[in-house]
């Protein structure tokens, strides 16, 4: 098998899959089970004498420079291949700003001279890793949580849901809780480390107890040593005590109901409610929770409890009659599920310039096509989403 693959590789250059997240970037080859590298989306900037995040930009010029540096880092430090004449599968959110996409295309096509770029939305790619005909994909990213219903490889755009309930929300809540307990201001990296090592998503029952007057026995508190702060020996200055309350409650904002249907369970149920009626049951039985934020221990079971409870209450109890909720587990770690989908789509012969296997990837484009048009196809643009038999096309209005 290895030899056979080797021959196939000689014939055609293996495409790369790029998933540029706001916190972590996943980069690797198609046809592989895991990305080659998962690195922070930042690069060393000699001008700033520090690391610069790719998503810190004021205008297109700066974003262009950021992306050039970031991709250089990925290509020549981590994956070690020539970007030229190699296809790229870009995993993106359906809600990626047009400006970002266009600039990324400009970087890839003009600076790195890649031969083709396939733009694939992450929701559909996540569903691709399951092979199931219908899937309800909840992606908990760093900034946002997105829910989309994918039916036979097509996203139900009408029911797309998104809210700023991501891992960063958990981090800010953790910072707030720690500050309440009198901890000094901590850097983002330390907060992330505390979150990863100590935080958990508590059960619904305990969350309600915390909200009431009789809080439960909190989880054990943790003394978290701070690097470089341990000068005063024996003193408590060198460590932060993470109380059990902070450990348990820092993920609560993800599930907090605020009347705007923005909690995770509301996003999922709203998405089901706005999907076609004949696939709602299938969606509820094919839930996939992924994204880096979903790696918090206990998040899925809490989500399940919250969903079951929300279904018994208005506005869902009289509109959704779902009997069972079933969850998928993807064949990858939570943070690289969308990447794996991209690798599968690209490895399955659905590279740039060709039709994808699932649902016909009309958004794939070659370099020459881009150089001619200087724009990307986008689902929100009337040029691309007007049906071919629409009267406006006949009158050459579009």
């Amino acid at each position: 098998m290895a030899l056979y693959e080797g021959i196939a590789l000689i014939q055609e250059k293996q495409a790369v899959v790029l998933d540029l997240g706001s916190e972590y970037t996943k980069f690797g080859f198609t046809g592989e089970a895991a990305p080659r590298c998962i690195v922070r989306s930042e690069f060393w900037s000699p001008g700033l004498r520090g690391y610069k995040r790719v998503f810190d930009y004021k205008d297109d010029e700066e974003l262009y420079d950021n992306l050039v540096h970031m991709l250089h880092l990925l290509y020549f430090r981590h994956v070690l291949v020539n970007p030229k004449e190699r296809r790229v599968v870009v995993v993106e959110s359906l809600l990626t700003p047009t400006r970002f996409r266009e600039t990324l295309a400009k970087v890839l096509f003009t600076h790195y001279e890649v031969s083709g770029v396939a733009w694939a939305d992450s929701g559909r790619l996540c569903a691709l890793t399951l092979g199931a005909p219908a899937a309800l994909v909840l992606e908990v990213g760093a900034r946002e949580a997105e829910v989309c219903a994918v039916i036979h490889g097509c996203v139900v755009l009408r029911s797309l849901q998104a809210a700023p309930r991501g891992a960063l929300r958990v981090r800010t809540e953790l910072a707030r809780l720690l500050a309440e307990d009198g901890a000094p201001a901590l850097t983002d990296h330390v907060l992330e480390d505390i979150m990863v090592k100590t935080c958990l998503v508590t059960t619904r029952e305990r969350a309600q107890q915390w909200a009431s007057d009789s809080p439960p026995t909190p989880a054990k508190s943790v003394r978290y040593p701070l690097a470089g702060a341990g000068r005063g020996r024996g003193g408590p200055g060198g460590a932060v005590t993470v109380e059990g309350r902070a450990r348990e409650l820092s993920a609560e904002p993800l599930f907090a109901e605020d009347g705007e249907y923005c909690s995770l369970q509301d996003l999922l149920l709203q998405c089901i409610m706005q999907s076609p009626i004949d696939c709602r049951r299938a969606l509820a039985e094919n839930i996939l929770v992924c994204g880096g934020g979903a790696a918090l221990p206990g998040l899925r079971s809490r989500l399940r409890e919250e969903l079951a409870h929300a279904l018994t209450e208005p506005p869902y109890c009289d509109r959704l009659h779902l009997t069972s909720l079933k969850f998928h587990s993807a064949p990858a770690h939570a943070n690289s599920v969308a990447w794996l989908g991209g690798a599968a789509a690209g490895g399955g012969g659905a590279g740039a310039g060709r039709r994808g296997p699932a649902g016909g990837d009309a958004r794939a484009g070659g370099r020459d096509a881009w150089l001619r048009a200087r724009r990307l196809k986008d689902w929100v643009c009337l040029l691309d989403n007007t049906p071919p038999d629409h009267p406006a096309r006949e009158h050459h209005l579009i």
Partner: protein
Amino acid sequence: MIPQVDSHYCANCLENMPSSEARLKKNRCSSCFDCPSCFHTLSTRATLAQPRPAPEAGGGDAKVENKQPKKMYYLSCFNCRWTSRDVGIPDQPVASGGWPERSAPHAARVSQLLEHYRAVAQQEKQDKLERERKKFAIRGKYITLTDKTGLTGAVARSIAGLGDAGAGAALAGFAPAVPKEDVEGLPEDAFTKEVNLKQITSMPQRLASPEWQPVSVSRLHPLAKLLSVKRSQRCRACDHNLTKPEYNPGSIKFKIELLAYYHVPEVKIISCEMIKPGAKSTLLLKLANPTGHEMALQLLPAAPPPPPPHGETEAATEDKDDSIEKSLDKSLKLDKEPRWPHVEPPAILTRVTPPAVTLTLAPRDDAAEYDDDARHEPSHIILWRKSNKLALRLELTTDPAAVEGSPARTALTVEYSYRNTVPQSITASQNRDHTLYTTVYLDLGTVGSAGL
């Protein structure tokens, strides 16, 4: 410039690896490892292990042989004291290589998925071909056998048992993922157990091995060292190699090194009087000829270069200082949009009055470096001359509208003769001498106040 991957090598053992082999090994060195805990390079340590005599050891000869202590090797980190014994990796009898490899947890399922999608893509392609064939099927004048018997190509193939059996089987054999009612919750003791921070991995430790992403320290495995690459650089316009490193990873020399530093005259500022709005000031410049040929120089007011006389392509490069890093960095920025307008040149308010003489620079001579005496020339422009360098006195006129405190910049175009030493084809030999133009932007500090 386009950077390119030239050769793969391991930064630790300085061993080259052919690119095909590197690809098979996923760009990782087979003998060097990084510490999974602190990412320092692991070193191999040897111990003497007394092999336990087997309980039913037979003859005396075997016993004597067994008594011999055997050298066993394990990996250890000198920085954080992590060893491969911590995670239960057995010691190895050989010093390098032979460390157990783990298979990725989801590899089987992923390869199933890939096969499935490959089959789907193949099926689609076949369907498309079939459709096209039907569209362009030429109806002959005569009734064919297939028309008569209703035996079409597809039917015939299916009767013969051919067709897309492979793809079909792969499609049929694929089982979509099965959802489950229950999800893994928190462990029972989540709220009562003490958290031992030393047992939980941090994010960088997890992400260093994307396939496994271990949560507990006991699951950390040594990371095979990631290879590094040597890069060569090519011109974007003509695809020529500009720099190419030597293949040997221990060497830092270049096989090909065509940097502007060696071809474009060097312009350095010696000193400059304070720039004042509406006043004249003096600027001292040093020019140096880096090439091995005599160079004729003329300073012109900053202007776009005249069109090339014989249709030869000339690239006007811009460099502020001729330091290599700066020009490299700058060209990175300029080259990024090869077909779009360049960065706007900075506004010039200070003008140079260029002398209308042609200066001649002697060829570079390494031996002349040791001559001390600079020759003073009886000229009001040239201050001194020393082998391939000369110092110039120029007059600057500043616009009265210049704002005090704003950066004072000036520009001038250097016209210089250049002899192409790269041997070209025989027919092009008569065209070895070129006249090239370079616009130099000089940053002369800030504009001072007029009263001073």
